[in-house]
Structure formats: structure tokens, C-alpha cells
């Protein structure tokens, strides 16, 4: 077991932490939803029609280009609606639960890969390059499991797992059969997972130390032509449980917190539940418009209270949309409430690790990149982030490849996007770059 110390990055001490680690049960959710956009790279083709009955673990749709990749229903019930947007793009698949508890029983003697594909666990894996759901014919060089989430206010994954930690052993055993390389597990110094059978490394340092991309880059970076898989420890435990019991377990513990939550808590629920069932009466009543985020403040998705818990997240954050409206000459402000990683505001007097209440304001207009080294100091990888971003904007494929686009995912740039003085949408730029790159290469 190796200790890898990361220095670059930054931890934001956001207000609204959970003080009580007790897990409470969520109120019942009227509907559940699967959002296809959560499974990047999978183009949905429906298998069920509206009004049809589905059991938990039964496929809702499969990938248009790769029929074996299936997304399954988290609950037993009726397919209520397929919400479509522009050009009939499927935005969400909504299921009304019937509480009959019908669930598909899987045959655990099946070939592990076939079972992963059949059970709908496959789309919860990610592959580098391109940060997409792996294609069904891929065989990864190595598999990386992240055992902690370093994003602001992120839940303790050990707590989310609870008793299911015991299935990790099985998961590692199953995953080992799918790669010629190794299965790695990246732990934080405070939360260790031992005896899992995986090659365990400990990562110390600020966010983004918990990001899969950062861990891969610091263990064995992805080279051109190579494929690695990444997943978090919760998905790993689900895999283990599936192979032990033959049942898919979609239940999860979710951290509901942030400056906009009056009573932050860990809540037990099922994947795809409504945010209403989690946030019911928990929001701060401060007269400010809340921004509800399914996920963390860096990579999460903005949702209304009618929205749903997105599949990749065990986290719902609520911040205020705007804390202070029409701020007069904000650029000259001496207010210690203006939070910055630079010492250009008086907030540095309070210390940069003080608990802060940040809103969704952009705090400035979009500009050309001016300050140098801003992105690099937020990305603990051997990559010239700024040059890579410029290559992506210019869509210079050769340069992108040379500068290491295969190693990155949008989430790796989230912290840089937060810190960016020029307010560029780095994650969107990287996502588009990866998509174009993939279209070009395939």
C-alpha cells in the first residue's frame, strides 16, 4: 500500500455540513426516474413502452450502437412517461412504483461480463479515454475504484456503504476477471478499506484527490490506445452484492446538505427518487431562491424540487441562487464575505479554510485567459491544462492527443473552473472536446 501525496488542488469549506451521522429513511417517492444524460456515451433506444410494467432490474432501454449495454429500472412499477426534448431526445424515463417488489433474479453462474451488462450495472462504469460508459467489447488495461469523494460536502462513502462493505471482496474478484491488469483501490487517509483484494493506495491532499482521473494519472496514466475503467466504491459494492445474491440493489444513502439546507442529513433512499422526497421540509426558508443540485457543487446537475436524484450521485447539495442582489461596485468591495483563493479580497483575513456560504453567482464576465498557471495549480496531473484547453478550443486533434486529452474527464477541470478568473466553462469545453475527439477517432 502506497501513500501518494498530492499538493495541487483546493478544499472549499462549504457551509451546511451534516452534524449527525445517523441515517434516516426518506419519505416515499411518488415516481422514480432514469436520466439518460447521466450515462454519457449511451444513446437510448427504448425497450419498454409507456404504460408497460417493469420489474426492478428489468431493462428500460439499451444503447443504440451497442445493444448489450442496458439501463435497467431501479424499482418495480409502471413506465409512466418518456420525457422527450428537442429532436425527440429522451430527457428522462419516469417510473411509477407499485410497491409489489417484483425484481429480476439474476443467475450468478453466468459469465461475469454478461451479468454486468444484463443487470444494468455496466452503465455505472466509466472508461477513459473519453469519460464514457465502456463499450461492451472493451477489455481494460486496469480498473480503478475510488473509495472517497473529495468534492465539497461530499458524503463519506464508508458511511454510504454501511454493511455492504463486505461485498467489496467479491467485487474485486469479479472485476479482476475482466482485466489483464490490476484492480486498484484509492482510499483517503481517514477512511481505509482493507482486505478487499485490490491494490490499495492512499491519496492525501485537497480536492480533486478523490477524482478517478487524478488517481489514475498518479498511479499509471492512460496512454493512447489504452482503456481503463473507473468506478466508485458504492458501484463496486453493488457489483459484489449482485454476484453474491443475484439481486440488484438500487438502494443508496444520500447526503443532503449545503448552505440552503436547514437540517442536513444522511438519508436512505433508492436511486432515481424525486428530490422532493429527500428535501421535503428541509430547505432553508430564508426568502432566497434555492439552487438544488443533484450531486456536488462542482459536477452536479441543476434541478428543480420536482427533479430527480441522478444515478451517479449519492449527494444532493442546495445553495442559494443569489446571496446579495445588485451588488454595488463589487469589484471594489472590501467585504470579507467575498470568497477567493487569491488574496485580493479581505476574506483572506478570515483564513481560506473558514466555513463559507457561496451562491451560484458567476462573479464576473467571461474573458480571454489572462492569468497564467491558474488551471495547473488546481490539477494534480502531469498535464499543461491551459495548453490543453486552448488545443480543445482550437480543435487541434494532434495537440489534444499530445497534451493528454485521453487522461482527463470534465470533472477534473471543475476546480479550475471554479477558480478561473476568466470564468470560462472549462467542463463544457472538455466534454465537447472529448465528444468531438471520439467522433473523429471511431
Amino acid at each position, binding site marked *: 500500500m502506497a501513500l501518494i501525496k498530492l499538493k495541487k488542488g483546493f478544499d472549499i469549506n*462549504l457551509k451546511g455540513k451534516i452534524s449527525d451521522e445517523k441515517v434516516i429513511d426518506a419519505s416515499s417517492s411518488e415516481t422514480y426516474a432514469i436520466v439518460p444524460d447521466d450515462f454519457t456515451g449511451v444513446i437510448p433506444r427504448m425497450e419498454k413502452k409507456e404504460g408497460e410494467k417493469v420489474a426492478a432490474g428489468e431493462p428500460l432501454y439499451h444503447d443504440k450502437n451497442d445493444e448489450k449495454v442496458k439501463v435497467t429500472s431501479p424499482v418495480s412499477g409502471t413506465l409512466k412517461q418518456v420525457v422527450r426534448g428537442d429532436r425527440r431526445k429522451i430527457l428522462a424515463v419516469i417510473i411509477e412504483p407499485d410497491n409489489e417488489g417484483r425484481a429480476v433474479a439474476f443467475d450468478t453462474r453466468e459469465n461475469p461480463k454478461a451479468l454486468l451488462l444484463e443487470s444494468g450495472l455496466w452503465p455505472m462504469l466509466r472508461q477513459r479515454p473519453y469519460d464514457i460508459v465502456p463499450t461492451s467489447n472493451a477489455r481494460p488495461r486496469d480498473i480503478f475504484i475510488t473509495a472517497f469523494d473529495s468534492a465539497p460536502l461530499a458524503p463519506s462513502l464508508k458511511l454510504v456503504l454501511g454493511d455492504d462493505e463486505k461485498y467489496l471482496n467479491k467485487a474485486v474478484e469479479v472485476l479482476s476477471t475482466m482485466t489483464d491488469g490490476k484492480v486498484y483501490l484509492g482510499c483517503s487517509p481517514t477512511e481505509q478499506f482493507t482486505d478487499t483484494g485490490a491494490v490499495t493506495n492512499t491519496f492525501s491532499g485537497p480536492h480533486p484527490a478523490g477524482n478517478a482521473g487524478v488517481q489514475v494519472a498518479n498511479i499509471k*496514466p492512460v*496512454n493512447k*490506445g489504452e482503456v481503463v475503467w473507473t468506478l466508485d466504491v458504492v458501484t463496486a459494492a453493488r457489483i459484489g452484492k449482485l454476484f453474491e445474491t443475484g439481486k440488484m440493489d438500487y438502494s443508496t444513502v444520500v447526503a443532503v446538505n449545503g448552505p440552503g439546507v436547514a437540517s442536513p442529513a444522511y438519508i436512505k433512499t433508492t436511486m432515481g427518487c424525486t428530490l422532493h422526497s429527500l428535501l421535503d421540509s428541509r430547505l432553508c426558508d430564508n426568502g432566497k431562491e434555492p*439552487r438544488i*443540485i443533484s450531486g456536488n*457543487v*462542482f*459536477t452536479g446537475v*441543476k434541478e428543480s424540487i420536482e427533479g430527480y436524484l441522478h444515478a451517479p450521485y449519492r449527494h444532493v*447539495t442546495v*445553495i442559494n*441562487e443569489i446571496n446579495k*442582489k*445588485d451588488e*454595488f*461596485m*463589487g*469589484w*471594489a468591495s472590501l467585504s470579507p464575505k*467575498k*470568497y*477567493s*483563493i*487569491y*488574496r*485580493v*479580497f479581505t*476574506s483572506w483575513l478570515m483564513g481560506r479554510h473558514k466555513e463559507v456560504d457561496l*451562491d*451560484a*453567482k*458567476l*462573479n*464576473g*464576465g467571461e*474573458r*480571454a485567459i*489572462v*492569468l*497564467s*498557471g491558474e488551471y*495547473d495549480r488546481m490539477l494534480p496531473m*502531469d498535464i*499543461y491544462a*491551459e*495548453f490543453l484547453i486552448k488545443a480543445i478550443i482550437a480543435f487541434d486533434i494532434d495537440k489534444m492527443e*499530445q*497534451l493528454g486529452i485521453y487522461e482527463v474527464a*470534465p470533472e477534473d477541470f*471543475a476546480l479550475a*473552473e*471554479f477558480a*478561473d*478568473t*476568466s*470564468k470560462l*466553462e472549462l*467542463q*463544457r469545453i472538455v466534454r465537447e472536446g472529448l465528444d468531438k475527439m471520439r467522433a473523429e477517432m471511431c
Partner: protein
Amino acid sequence: MDKIKPHFQEGGKLSKLESVYDGMETFLFTPNTTSRSGVHIHDSNDMKRTMITVVVALVPCLLFAMYNIGFQHFKAIGMEATFGQMFLFGLLAMLPVIVVSYVVGLGIEFIGAQIHHKEIQEGFLVTGILIPLIVPINTPLWMTAVATAFAVIFAKEIFGGTGMNIFNVALITRAFLFFAYPSEMSGDSAFVKLDSAFGYGGGNVVDGFSGATPLGEVATNFDHFSTSTLDAFIGLIPGSPGETSMIAILIGAAILLFTGIASWRVMLSVFAGGLAMGAVAHAFATPETLYNAAHLDPLTQVCLGGFAFAAVFMATDPVTGARTKIGQYIYGFLIGVFAILIRVYNGGYPEGAMLAVLLMNAFAPLIDYCVVQVNINRRAKRAKAQ
């Protein structure tokens, strides 16, 4: 502001002033725009605050410049004056230059922004204050205006505005003046204001007065050179307004470094390069040498002329400088070396800091290219090893 907004939007009566309105609005009120995609929270620091921080860092130089202009003036006309009188004279002398610099530069930026339907960029906030600080005080205002216009249009706008320029805009202004009107830019009469400012001050120059800068003296009249390193450090000597006082510059440097806006790597390595080259020149100076400046010891070298100002405020411009960490060391060091090299061994130019920075501006992309190429090669090698 919201009430008059419709007039400025497309189709409104004043839509031609859209950018100006937008500029004023964002100047007065921090926009309420919230993040649409990507991260939900953003750092409070934006380009406005960044630029204002640099301006704040320049304030000590500006204040000292005003005082020194008055000090030199009253010294030249042999009159006793109080601190207040000196400062007032300097203020009156500097104000027109600052106004001209901002009006011309910002005017062009506003027009440029409107043509491209873009937001007004903040870059000129800093350039506009740098120009009065590096242009000799006796430069006719129309020359400053022409030079500023030239620099903003040809060194910045044609490249795409703030963040896209290759050469430092303020230095292009200075270089334009230097090469277009050489007689006004050097010699004994350029750096000390002798006539009155708005009717204030003025008088007959005392006998035996020379307004030459110390470096000018070194180049042409070395026998008379009497400026001590301490004088140069404090800065009550003739020179371009903002460049004389090492103390004021160091205060500015402290602000830039503390806030994290400027790169300490660049700053440090410029001084290192200057000291190194100064030491080399000093070591090779023989009593017969024609290069007078070689006789100066390295410490005096970096205290004199525009060297320190260039190191702190010009070389650290992130847009025109090297952007990689290793590149910044190389870039800064070479600026220091070239500045002293030009100063000592080129008889034509008593000061080399400006030219050294401009020269290295041109080479910064090459330095970065080489540094990034090392990373690219390492990645390629790693892939091959598989």
C-alpha cells in the same frame, strides 16, 4: 440602470452604445448572472478585481512620481518648496497625461468592443496607468495620445483585445515614442519638468543644472556621475515618473506577490538575471573600457533606470510573458540579462529594460513551446514504452 436598459438593447434608440452601457452597468453593479453549466460556485475574483489590484499596486509608484516631479522641478529652478507644493506640482503635471492616456485608450477599447458586440475588457485599466508612469514627463500630450492610439490598435486590438496581445501595450507606447520622436525622449530635457503646470510653479533654471538621468550621465558624462545606490533606491532622481523609486516599486511588488496576481518566478528571475549580467559586466570592466555603465556595481545597476519597474510590472504581464512555470524562470532571467546587456554595451540606448521585455515578449511563446514539448515527449515516450 434597469429602466434605461431597453434603449441600449438591440433595436433600441441607443443600441450603438450597447457595449458602453454594459460596461457601465457591470462597473457599477456586479452582474446577477448565475452559472448555467458546469460548476455551480465561482471564485469572487474576476478580471475587474485582478486589474484593480494591479492598479492599487501601482499607486505607490504614482504618488511617489508626483512628489518626485515636484521635487525635481523646484530643485531645477532653485526654489525652496514644501512637500505639499512639490506634490501639487507633480499632481498637476501628471494629471493631463493620465487623462490623455485613459481617454484615448479606453475610447478605442469602447469602440472596438462595440464593433465586435463584446463586453468591454478591463485590460486597459492597467495599461492606462502604466503609460503615464513610463513616458517622460515632458513628452507633449499629443505624442502620448498618438503613441497610445498606435499601441492599443496595433499591439492589442488587431490581435483580438485583452489577453490576445503578443507585446506589452504600455511598452509598445513607450517604444513608439522612443523611436518616432527620439529627440523628445532622451537627453537632459526630457525627464525634469521645467515649465509651469497649469500656471503653477515655473521659473528660471539655475546655473549648472542638468536634468540628465543617472543612466544618461553614465553614458555620456561619466565623470559627473554622482548618484549613489541609496539615492537610486529612494528615487529622488530624474527619470521616467514611475521608475525612479525602488521603494515604491517594492511596495507594489509586495502587493502583487501577496495577492498572488503576479508571478514571483518571473520577478525573481528578472532580478537574478540583472544581477548576474551586472556582475559579469562589472567583472570585465577595465579602466580603459568605453562602456561606462560596466563600472557600476550590480546592485546599483538594478536600482537605476527602469529595470526594477520593468521587472515588477512589465515582465510579470501574464498575457505577453511565458505561461509555464519553467518557462517563467527562463523568460525572466533573460529579460534581466538583456536589459543590462543593452544598457552596458549598446552606446545608443542608455536604458535597455524596455527593449529587453519587448524582445522576450516575442520569445515567450517559443520558450513555452519548448517547455510543453518536453511534456509531450515524455507522454509519447511513456506510450511507446507500453
